[in-house]
């Protein structure tokens, strides 16, 4: 991955103004900005890595963790906020042991907060793997995660069975 970034950097001019476009391109390709990637960019542009990190963390569009297999987006737009979107977010966070913007160490889940996904009537809303989950409640959080757990267990069982039968 770093090699790829290196090559990408070769094609962009060494100008400070290029910082954000470069970061955007890296994120497009690799889905997130790793610390090493940011160090490479700093080296390329001749600025300090804390400067790159400072700029990158200023914008919500950049992420610093690889996205999980299942992406959970919790809406905190006005309507969802009013009916307790933050409680939903907090429930996901607590269940998974990570904060928004982070990914679980096994790379299964990542949580993000988003602002209004355009279906305020269904508030509070979470979007889990592109499926809109309407009228969220703490019990539903548990239900969704339980669903994934069951799915995973089934997959593993099937895998073991197919290995055994071979």
């Amino acid at each position, binding site marked *: 991955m770093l090699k790829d970034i290196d090559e990408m950097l070769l094609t962009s001019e060494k100008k400070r103004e290029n910082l954000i476009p470069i970061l955007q391109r890296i994120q497009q390709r690799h889905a997130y900005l790793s610390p090493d990637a940011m*160090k490479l960019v700093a080296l390329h542009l001749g600025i*300090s890595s804390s400067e790159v*990190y400072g700029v990158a*963390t200023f914008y919500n569009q950049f992420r610093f963790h690889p996205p999980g297999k299942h992406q959970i987006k919790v809406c905190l737009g006005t309507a969802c906020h009013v009916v307790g979107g933050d409680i939903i977010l907090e429930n996901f966070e607590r269940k998974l042991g990570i904060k928004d913007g982070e990914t679980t160490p096994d790379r299964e889940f990542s949580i993000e907060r988003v602002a209004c996904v355009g279906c305020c009537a269904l508030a509070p809303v979470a979007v889990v793997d592109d499926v809109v989950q309407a009228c969220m409640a703490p019990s539903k959080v548990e239900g969704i995660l339980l669903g994934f757990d069951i799915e995973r267990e089934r997959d593993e069982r099937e895998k073991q069975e197919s290995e055994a039968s071979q």
Partner: protein
Amino acid sequence: MPRLTIDDIEIEVPHGTKVIDAAERLGIMIPRFCYHRGLGSVGACRMCAVKFLQGPFKGLQMSCMIDAQDGMVISTTDAEALDFRRHVIEWLMLNHPHDCPVCDEGGHCLLQDMTVSGGHGMRRFSGEKRTYRDQYLGELVQHEMNRCIHCYRCVRFYREFAGYRDLGALQIAQKVYFGRLADGPLESPFAGNLVDLCPTGVYTDKPARFRARRWDLERGPSLCIHCSLGCNTVAGARYREVLRQEARLNEEVNGYFICDLGRYGFAYAGHPERPRSPRIGSQAVGWQEAVAVACDRLARLGPRSIACLSSARASVETLGTLKYLSKRVGSDHFVCFYDAAVKFKMGEIVSKLDGRTAVSLRDIEKADLLIGVGADPINAAPMLALAMRQAQRAGAKVVMMDPRPLFLPCDFEHLSVSPELFDVCLSALVKSTFDRERVGKHGEAAVTLYDRMLSCDPLDASVQARLEPLIAVVEGCRRPIIICGSDIAPASSVSFAADVALLMGEVKDQSGVFYVLPGANAYGAALFDAANGSSFESVVQEIEDGAIKALIVAESDPFRYVADRDRLQRALNKLELLLVLDYLPSETVRKAHIFLPTRAIFETRSSFINQEGRLQVAEKIHSPGTPIWQVSNKGHPPRLYGTGICGGEPRAAWRVLQQIAHTLVHSQNEISENDPWPVIGGECAVLARHHQHNGPLHGLRIIPQTSTAAFFDGDLDLQPKQPMDGHLTLLPVVSTFATEELASYSEIIQRVIGSPCAYLHSDDAERCGLLDCDRIRIAVDDGFLEIDLTVSDKMARGFLILPRHSRFEWQKLHCFAQGLPVEKIGNCTP
């Protein structure tokens, strides 16, 4: 000058004064967080709101953003302003952890003060507080982000003012974080200022952590004596040792800040091995006996058989009294500079620096052109680099002539030429600015010098090409200053710099020369030392010949400075008496026949003269004594009781020296027991003029308005020598924090200095088959010296640059003064 009314009091202030400062002049402290006079205003915290009643502005405004203007009527106590400020502080306190009992800032915390003065007494917010993870920022500064109120002072200082980039503002909104990309020591040698600047306890003094509250400390005005700038500090001591130092504002010298060496270098005074009792041989004895025996032995020796040594770290009091003693005992030898070349340069500097050319650090900030001649600010006088950066930020051009791969926290033009070319380069730069007529005003000698400049050798094409655009800059500038070093710069350049500065004064609005000297009191030492003809070389010679039989060494350690240590050792062995007075556990102290402990700067009132000739006084902070933690375990006050203070024997060197002089020559009339100044004045006319009945005039320059020295008499070095084939010239240079003597006894500083590292030009490295980061070994008489190598193309060719680092025995290389044959350099990287 605008007149305005603040809280019904009228005041007239200079143009450009902010309202917040105008109020301060009246003793009205408007609450503030983001505003700091050293950094300027940004209007970020909204804490300084006041009500403007009349004048060009109306209503609630930020007093730190508005210049005082005629006719303004302002109320700082208006109900609306009070209410506004109360809300601001309440918001700022929402996330604050309220951990004052365990916070080191408590007791001198601006946030505590402002919370109270802002009128916020009750916490109403009951939500969850934002928390952060702290970072490891090195050994000097402790990080505690939860206490942050986001005033941005730290990044403004660190990035804008000081020019370092590894600390910054990260994240956004609720999560804004001040720190580094990852844990690691702060790179700037000015990082300690964050401790002073942060209005709350985010950055605190790490070595002093959990050791004292502000009100526990004995605090007083002191000085930094780690380099020649003489920055002002406030030292705070507790339980018989200094625990922390802060910067003390001095508009003419350091401004609001100091470097980390000045802040954390104090630990030498509390060194666990510091010798604290008088000693004859290895036997501890009482003062009376030690002095009596010393006097007795000195008295037995004839005149001219005693030599006196001191150094640039000794105070004016010590130097003056030693000089007095040396005259009394009929000694011809009084030496403060071990290197004859340095001594000569110091003589030139002291005689030429005068009211017309001397400049302060503030003048440097206002200059529009800075020309460096063999000066390495970051390594030799850190705060100078900060002043240069301010000049550069305001648009000044910075040109540095130096063979070293210099680093400065600002943009600069680097001419990496060898020291022999300094004169030629400086001539080439400035000659077109002068004309014969103007130069003629300074007399014949000036014209002769001018002709020499005109006739100077053409430089090689690459240097000439770099100079060309700079010459135009020199012609166009109005306030040029020459910054001249005193170690690698040849004597001719040192005096030439003053000549050029004087001539520039004729054609420019303001001009001057700023010397960087080898030691805190180098100027003072030169006042006493320079005029006499003796040198350390002649002292050693006479000891070897048997003419000198006794050596009095006051606050100096020849072993540190003299290259040929074996010869020195042999010479000392021949002595009948080696009498040493000092406060450091040095090599020379260990070898002393009679040792008398003296007081460090914090334990006695002492004066030092900085590089621009400014006499400054450091007050006594605490009484001498072994720090309590050293005499009892875990810092508990001792459980044993005695009548004296443990380790409290050290006396001020001047008192001891005066007593010896007094006993030896039985004359009491001119000696006053409690004031060293009559004696000092007797030894140095300049100082006599500047002292009053209770000490010297503090903070003033003692230089003459116009020097009577012969200007323009130096011979320019216009014919650079060709280096010997197959040889590299060795250049031992100062290295930040690692060269200075006192710092090498300061445990905190020793923890943070980097490992020694040599520099070689990439062409030379290629010739020797060496690569960057190689570890090289140099064959010397008795073995090898190893050091890491950095290859650079930002330095002059033909040099091997070596740090005078406390962990590298550069002294052993003295045999290669004429050049180091490249075959002596080996590579020990596998």
